[in-house]
């Protein structure tokens, strides 16, 4: 009996790990944008929604191969991110933080309404169902395994990019001293635009993975936007490593909590944990 118990617990832990990978990817783009530009894209999850619709539309309506549709969705959301910066964020770059927040909040409702107008309120499914993978007595969703793999790959590529390339180093430097960047020959505007496109591309990648697991509808952003934001705050807004840790911690609370109690309790416990951390360490795990 106790052996069986252990293996289900192990399954819960491993599922939490997989969920953590997805959370890590979700928080990466938002954290990157905040760390570099100092603006929170409240509408980040709505960018993901746009990416999901792009995959759905290209694959189901226009019969593109699913991988081509996904590649196109990533490019599209990257362009959307760049456009968001150029036309919405840039004009309010020196405005009060609350105004910047409200502007991106406005974009959130705009994208939701636009999606409703364009696609209606139906739940749409790309119609790809991946099997579950069985390891011994444990079973995992292949979509989650894939999401975890892609998230790990995305995080690794980002890490390498930020650590090794000139552009990546400049992206880390600009959050430490924006004013002297011109002395290094760096145009801050160009870095902001590149970062926004990068954040968009990460949202696009997340969209490709989520569309395999969830139906897309105009309000889908609300089901993972808040948790993405919570993860970033828990890790310390702008801290990529902190967000990474927070993603896995929160996912374990959800998964193990759901194992011992009912699934809904997993989220409940995770949010209680979040609130407790906010009392003890308001700046987040690795925040400054």
């Amino acid at each position, binding site marked *: 009996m106790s052996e069986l118990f252990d293996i289900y617990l192990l399954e819960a832990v491993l599922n939490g790990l997989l969920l953590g990978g997805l959370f890590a990817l979700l928080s990466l783009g938002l954290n990157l944008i905040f760390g570099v530009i100092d603006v929170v894209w409240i509408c980040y999850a709505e960018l993901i929604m746009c990416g999901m619709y792009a995959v759905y539309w290209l694959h189901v309506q226009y019969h593109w191969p699913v991988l081509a549709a996904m590649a196109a969705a990533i490019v599209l959301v990257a362009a959307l991110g760049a456009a968001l910066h150029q036309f919405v964020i840039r004009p309010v770059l020196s405005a009060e933080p609350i105004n910047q927040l409200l502007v991106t909040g406005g974009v959130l409702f705009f994208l939701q309404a636009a999606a409703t107008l364009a696609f209606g309120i139906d739940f749409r499914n790309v119609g790809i169902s991946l099997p579950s993978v069985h390891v011994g007595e444990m079973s995992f969703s292949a979509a989650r395994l894939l999401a975890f793999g892609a998230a790990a790959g995305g995080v690794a590529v980002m890490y390498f990019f930020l650590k090794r390339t000139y552009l990546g*180093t400049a992206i*880390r430097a600009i959050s*430490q*001293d924006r004013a002297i960047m*011109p*002395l*290094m*020959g760096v145009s*801050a505007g160009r870095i902001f635009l590149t970062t926004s496109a990068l954040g968009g591309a990460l949202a696009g990648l997340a969209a490709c993975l989520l569309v395999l697991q969830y139906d897309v509808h105009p309000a889908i952003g609300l089901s993972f936007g808040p948790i993405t934001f919570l993860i970033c705050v828990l890790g310390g807004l702008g801290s990529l490593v902190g967000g990474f840790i927070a993603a896995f911690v929160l996912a374990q609370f959800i998964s193990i909590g759901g194992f011992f109690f009912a699934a809904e309790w997993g989220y409940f416990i995770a949010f209680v944990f979040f609130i407790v951390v906010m009392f003890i360490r308001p700046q987040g795990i690795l925040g400054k």
Partner: protein
Amino acid sequence: MRAGEAVAVIGPNGAGKTTLLRAISKLVAPSGGEIAFENESLRNVPAHQIVSRGIAHVPENRRLFPRLTVEENLKMGAYPVASRKKFPERLEQVFGLFPRLKERRRQAAGTLSGGEQQMCAIGRALMSGPKLLLLDEPSAGLAPVVVQSIFELMRRICAEGYTVLIVEQNIRQVLKVVQRAYLLEAGRIVLSGSAAELTASPQIQKTYLGL
């Protein structure tokens, strides 16, 4: 300024010395007048292209990126595309000039001592292979012992053949390093000449050297 020359701009607080350097780097827009470098006006050159023209600026208070390593700070100095190819050889040059930086290359720049930070800031500027080096108050905020070594260092940089424009409040020391100097007061040049002439000038002696 002529190539290979070391020139100082001296003067009291608020005379506009730092502003002069910031205007050359286009960090502030001059309200009038002309800045030319190698017979070309810099009027329409945006700030981030100045360094590619061959002007590197070591800002006041060093302004390193504290959470980047020493080597990453130096890498930022080599950001312009033309400088990237020469990164390895210039890194060796800078490490040759400041062996201490080589020892601490993997350390976060914020953990360096004041003198080491100044070396790193100068090294970062040298990474672009500048024709003109602007130094803003290199001795400010450093312990007296360290100030000595920083001036020694500046003497070496001038001897290496770099063209250097130094802004300093430590007038006695800086006049030993440079060939010529300008005295700036309230935004105007009130005195200019060779370092020896300025050191001997009664005005400088009385007001600034306290003799």
